[in-house]
């Protein structure tokens, strides 16, 4: 894992001092809320329906146990005892007091964390594959490139007042576990003639005009990587639309120019930028790479046999919530934050502490946050799985539902969010309850269900195999159903099925769609595969009759 040196620490500490100064000026009435707003926003502090919300950056979703415990401490000390893990691999606290925020940032800085650029029209926290460093299919550890981007983008003087927010994801395998092409810039590490480089996609995103990013640069070597990023951003900063907030994302620019013309402009800008020497030397790449080496002592081991426990709760959990590791005898464990009836992505301070303890004891002191709002223990010996499972059962964290219908992504919705049309959390809870029968869920198989409370799409509804979108219809909450989206390597955008539903109606509709799938599927087909084969009609018929 990356560790701060004196320079990283000095920069984050200076930021805490700066924000304390700004909050003091605000509390003393020296600056207006209007002037303060952009300052608090670049420190992750939003004003929401009931209180301030603080979003803490978890760079590429990676943490150690000490950092995870600090998140529990903040939940306990400054919030109501819980936190909410987000689709961008961050954590949010919903009940924060403005006057506490400098102390929270100071606590975070003491464990090499911050809330820098977690909101505002700047380059946001970089996201990545939650199995980075552990997945057998990666060509390199994407976090090395993500950390390079983190440093380059932090307080970037030219790109802190972009037309709109800017999100970057880095992956390093063909299987896309980070919705890479639904980001403003998506990077896939690939090899060419034995050299690792970046394949760069630009102009994806969700929101009201969802788009899958086209490829803009097929291969960039690391010595030109930051110059290329700088050129991509400069073209956007200069020419992205600023007249209409709904058309300000880079996806609109790339779409309006056409991918080929945008690529040409980037290439032209690159000629100017390359001369500036902004790319760090090989020694810096190697320094960062060393932090992401396989943890010491993680050596091949014999696999764990099931000893006649087939069909047990443990066996189901192991089958569903673990995946193979690069190193024999190891797995990565995904801990579900989606208990039936719970709030997707929420964890209590006690649960956060339990996960931190497990990481320290069993996962070489590492944790990851996934974009599906779950937590991963990346480096676990199979022989430790029974002990981990027992600890998770005791902490009510042992749901065996990863990628099943109850592993729902949901945005905060009308319960917290001032932009919402409709509630998301109660819909997620009702759907999970409807499908509470574990055997039925397993039989249905992989089904990604995603819910947003409005068109901003924080809950990724466009990318759900089944998506639910809250809309406002004459002052009452109404939900539209979308089918056929995917945020994976086969990225696609869901299509709206037809007229919307009320809260209970949408739960019924989801069930009808799922049951129709069960009658239509052929061997081994996931819901998404069946939908792609048969199209919308049979599902429409099942729902509307």
């Amino acid at each position: 894992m990356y560790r701060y040196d004196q320079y990283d620490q000095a920069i984050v500490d200076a930021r805490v001092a700066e924000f304390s100064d700004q909050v003091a000026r605000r509390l003393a009435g020296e600056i207006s809320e209007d002037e303060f707003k952009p300052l608090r926003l670049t420190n992750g502090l939003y004003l929401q329906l009931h209180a301030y919300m603080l979003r803490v950056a978890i760079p590429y979703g990676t943490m150690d146990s000490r950092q995870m415990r600090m998140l529990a401490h903040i939940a306990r000390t400054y919030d109501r005892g819980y936190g909410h893990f987000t689709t961008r691999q961050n954590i949010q606290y919903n009940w924060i007091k403005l006057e506490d925020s400098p102390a929270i940032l100071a606590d975070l800085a003491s464990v090499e964390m911050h809330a820098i650029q977690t909101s505002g029209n700047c380059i946001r926290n970089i996201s990545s594959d939650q199995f980075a460093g552990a997945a057998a299919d990666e060509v390199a550890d994407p976090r090395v490139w993500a950390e390079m981007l983190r440093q380059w983008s932090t307080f970037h003087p030219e790109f802190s007042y972009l037309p709109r927010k800017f999100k970057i994801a880095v992956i390093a395998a063909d299987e896309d576990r980070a919705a890479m092409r639904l980001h403003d810039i998506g990077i896939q590490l690939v090899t060419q003639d034995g050299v690792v480089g970046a394949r760069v996609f630009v102009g994806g995103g969700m929101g009201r005009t969802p788009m899958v990013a086209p490829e803009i640069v097929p291969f960039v070597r690391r010595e030109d990587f930051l110059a290329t990023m700088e050129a991509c951003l400069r073209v956007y900063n200069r020419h992205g639309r600023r007249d209409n907030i709904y058309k300000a994302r880079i996806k609109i620019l790339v779409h309006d120019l056409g991918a080929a013309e945008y690529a040409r402009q980037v290439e032209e800008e690159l000629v100017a930028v390359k001369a500036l020497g902004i790319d760090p030397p090989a020694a810096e790449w190697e320094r960062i790479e060393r932090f992401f080496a396989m943890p010491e002592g993680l050596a091949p081991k014999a696999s764990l046999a099931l000893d006649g426990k087939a069909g047990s709760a443990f066996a189901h959990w192991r089958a569903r919530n673990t995946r193979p590791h690069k190193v024999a005898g190891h797995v990565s464990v995904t801990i579900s934050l989606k208990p039936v009836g719970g709030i997707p992505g929420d964890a209590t301070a006690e649960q956060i502490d339990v996960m931190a303890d497990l990481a320290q004891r069993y996962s070489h002191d590492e944790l990851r946050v996934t974009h599906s709002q779950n937590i991963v223990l990346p480096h676990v010996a199979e022989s430790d799985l029974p002990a981990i499972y027992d600890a998770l059962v005791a902490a009510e964290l042992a749901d065996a539902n990863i990628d099943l219908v109850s592993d729902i992504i949901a945005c905060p919705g009308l319960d917290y969010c001032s932009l919402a049309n409709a509630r998301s959390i109660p819909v997620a809870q009702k759907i999970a309850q409807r499908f509470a029968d574990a055997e039925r869920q397993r039989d249905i198989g992989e089904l990604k269900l995603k819910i947003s409370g409005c068109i901003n799409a924080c809950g990724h509804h466009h990318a759900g195999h089944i998506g639910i979108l809250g809309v406002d219809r004459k002052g009452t909450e109404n939900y539209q159903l979308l089918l056929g989206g995917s945020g994976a390597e086969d990225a696609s955008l869901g299509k709206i099925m037809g007229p919307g539903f009320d809260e209970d109606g949408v739960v019924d509709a989801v069930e009808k769609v799922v049951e129709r799938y069960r009658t239509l599927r052929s061997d081994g087909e996931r819901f998404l595969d069946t939908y792609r084969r048969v199209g919308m009609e049979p599902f429409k018929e099942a729902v509307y009759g």
Partner: protein
Amino acid sequence: MVELRFRTDEAPEQPAVTLDAFLDQSNATAVRLEPDDEPRALLPHLDRIALIEIAFPKFRDGRGYSSARILREAGYAGELRAEGDVLVDQIGFMRRCGFDSFAPARPLDMAAVERALERFAHVYQPAADGAVPVWKLRHGG
């Protein structure tokens, strides 16, 4: 009005003209760029320019940062002024992009500006101000 200037030479006296006027008029030495003006149109003329004023009608409009860097990258060494909605907490970034004079529409709290400019001892990326990025310091800068 210029409130803050980081140059020791005489301040240019000629009023800044619009980009179109400048390109028409061969004797102008001061020019003003609006956010959507093309800074590269000035590149053939940099030698005779003493002042480029870049307009910030709204602080949220960050195009002027790119304009400034493009001009500095091309070797422009004259005065580069930020004019308009220029606030305390933007001045640090503007300095890094090459601005060396500031004409804010509303007066600045100079004590706060001073604190802001001294706050960050280190930077992650090279820009137009010559600050040494930490990756260079790490490897024997």
